[in-house]
């Protein structure tokens, strides 16, 4: 079990790190897909079957598509003016800030005694129970999430739509 977890971690972290570092946006987006699939596998490993499939459905099926479309819709052609290249400085600063966060987090995790029974078998939660919980105690949250998604959808459409009102309708 631990071995599987370590392998998964390597897959997830490796693909994420490479995706962040690559210059080719399409490749990095596809690597992100791999990373997300790995996270879904982690959920499966942890026994959260429903969440794993939801993760695949939403991230691999939907978010990745949106990302790829966005990449294609924002192709940057040949730059006329040279970009001020401050990426190295920024990278160093980001590394320092991120590294310190990582250090603090690691310190916190390793410094906290966690005496949980790791030998316990993976818990299961059937979809029926999950549904009962969603529609029962968490119904309000579910409704709010529904509203949020609707608003996000409409907002995305409004933001991304081209405003053609100032152009003649049928310019040949």
């Amino acid at each position, binding site marked *: 079990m631990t071995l599987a977890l370590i392998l998964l971690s390597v897959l997830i972290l490796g693909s994420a790190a490479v995706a962040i570092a690559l210059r080719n946006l399409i490749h990095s987006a596809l690597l992100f897909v791999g990373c997300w699939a790995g996270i879904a596998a982690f959920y499966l490993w942890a026994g959260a079957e429903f969440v794993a499939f939801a993760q695949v459905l939403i991230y691999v099926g939907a978010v990745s598509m949106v990302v790829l479309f966005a990449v294609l819709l924002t192709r940057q052609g040949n730059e006329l003016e040279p970009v001020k290249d401050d990426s190295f400085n*920024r990278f160093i*600063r980001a590394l320092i*800030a991120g590294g*310190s*966060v990582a250090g*603090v987090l690691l*310190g916190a995790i390793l*410094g906290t005694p966690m005496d949980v029974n790791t030998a316990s078998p993976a818990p299961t939660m059937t979809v029926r129970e999950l549904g009962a919980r969603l529609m029962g105690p968490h119904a309000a949250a579910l409704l709010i999430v529904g509203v949020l998604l609707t608003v996000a959808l409409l907002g995305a459409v409004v933001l991304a739509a081209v405003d053609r009102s100032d152009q003649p309708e049928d310019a040949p």
Partner: protein
Amino acid sequence: MYFPASHLWIIPALPLVAAAIGALVPRSGRALASGAAIASMVAAFFVSCLALHTALADPAAHAAHNFAWFDVGSGAMRLGWLLDPLTAFMCVMVTFVSSLIFIFSLGYMKEDANFKQFFCFLSLFAAAMLGLLVANSLLLLFICWELVGLASYLLIGFWFHKPSAAAAAKKAFITTRIGDLGFLIGLLWLYDSTGSLLFFDGGHGVLEAATLTALTGKTLVCCGLTVSTAIGLLIFCGAVGKSGQFPLHVWLPDAMEGPTPVSALIHAATMVAAGVFLIARVYPLMSADQVLANVPLHALTVVAFIGAITALLGACIAVAQNDIKRILAFSTVSQLGYMMLALGVGSWTAAIFHLLTHAFFKALLFLGAGSVIHAAHHEQDIRRLGGLGAKMKITFATFAIGMMALSGVPFLFSGFWSKEGILHAAHEWDVSHLPLYAGLAAVVLTAFYMTRLMAETFFGKSRSHESGHAHENSAVMTVPLVLLAACAILLSLLAWPSPWLQHQLDPSAHSEPGGISLMVLSIVLVAVGIGSGWAIYGRKPRATEASPDPLETAAPDIIAALAARLGFDELYAATVGRLNSGFASLADFMERWIWGGAVTLLARFGEFTGVVNRETDENTLNGGFDSVSHQIRGTGRAYSRAQTGDAHGYMRFIALGFVVLMLFVMLGGSR
């Protein structure tokens, strides 16, 4: 198979659904709207028959189903359905007549552009009427009562593009409202004094003995009337308005501006009978004061005299009218007067019997008139008709049956038996015999004007182009006529050889055989009426439309006054109308000068205080705030330099802030 009272709502709900369908389908959905209306009516008829069957199993029982509508304070406003023979008979009659009239309308309204609306309104009317009948609560009855009024308004004004129709609709609505105001006051008073509006509620209803005793026990201080008399008279106001009783009868003849099926259904057979039904329904309340001898006025006495006056008055005016529908309308007024008379003299069963028979033969007469009008291209003036008997044989035959039933031609026709019952009851009334004499006079007049109508319309030769080209209508219009005519005859069986119906309605009523002498007298009177009518109009038919009426030449003043309907409309315009406009101008004056002045004064004061306020504000208070906000603005400008627009930088700061916080917690928190 028995029908529980708790399911009575089905009867009004069926036409209500049809009305909804009629309202929702597009204008072109003629077949759907009319089909739904007729189907629902026929279904309601069968359900009503079932209900009648159930009710007759135990005629004395008042099976009621009550439920709470909404909560009021500690109690609840309760409504309910009531199933007894009265309700059941009325339901059967209304649904049967309505079905036939709906079918007749298919033919009559065929060319109308608003065909589907017509059926929508008709269904709405039927739903309200049936709701009125099955109600076990005076409140529910009142609601349906008003809905019936609304449907009547819509249908009278159905051809609203005709100014006369629109005016007639308005007149009908407003006139009946006057009566309804009394009804409403009586209703509220009743609720106030009894705390219930349910008719039957297991001993607590307003028509049950305990409540009635309590009501008659109380007496009004001012005039000595018992409470029950006062309430009864107020409720009777509603009946006067709806049933076209004197002095509120003026709207009913004008209501003939509506399409003829509407006149037949609403203003002859069903709605106008609602007033009679109402009094019959609350009859225990109306008659509660009969047990007391020392009261100044019995409610039923008023009813009897009003009925007698109306019966005579309507018959008189009908003699001098020329419009075929108007004659029938005044005849309706007169017959409703008869029913009220019967109620007043204590025989509500006779009133209901006459109501039922009258519904059939008056619907028959109106539909016959509609058939004539339809055939004669909407010519309604009897002086311009004539000679139709040969051209429209079925209409003629059925119309003649209706006429004979209305006139009270003996033995074979239902009208004879019902009228006989009323006269008999009037004869036995021991307060006064004046109503009997009025009734007998009306018998002669009724026979006379109906004979005149027949003679002018169907005999002689045609006196105008329109009537010359008339021809019999299609089966969709004649079949209802034939069915109604059959009913007009067969309904005799309800009273003869034994008064079966009256037994069913009121098993406790003692029935005595009618006096032979009275029967002979009325037969003679009918013969006199028909004979004189035939002598004046029948033997020598009118030659042209302009030729003078024989009676008019004989007594021009009287006939002119009658033709002008004795000037009731003008009288009302001069009194009530004048008073109303006086009040209106007074209200206008008050509004303009007294209230308006006060409001203007207040406004001026408000403006003044506003000016004072602003001056203090700007000069004294604001200075301090201005300097503070200057400083705030300066600080904001300084802070805004931190907003570099560099999102990466923000993120870095957040991350470092997180690290610092974590370190603080980890290092500081452990100590």
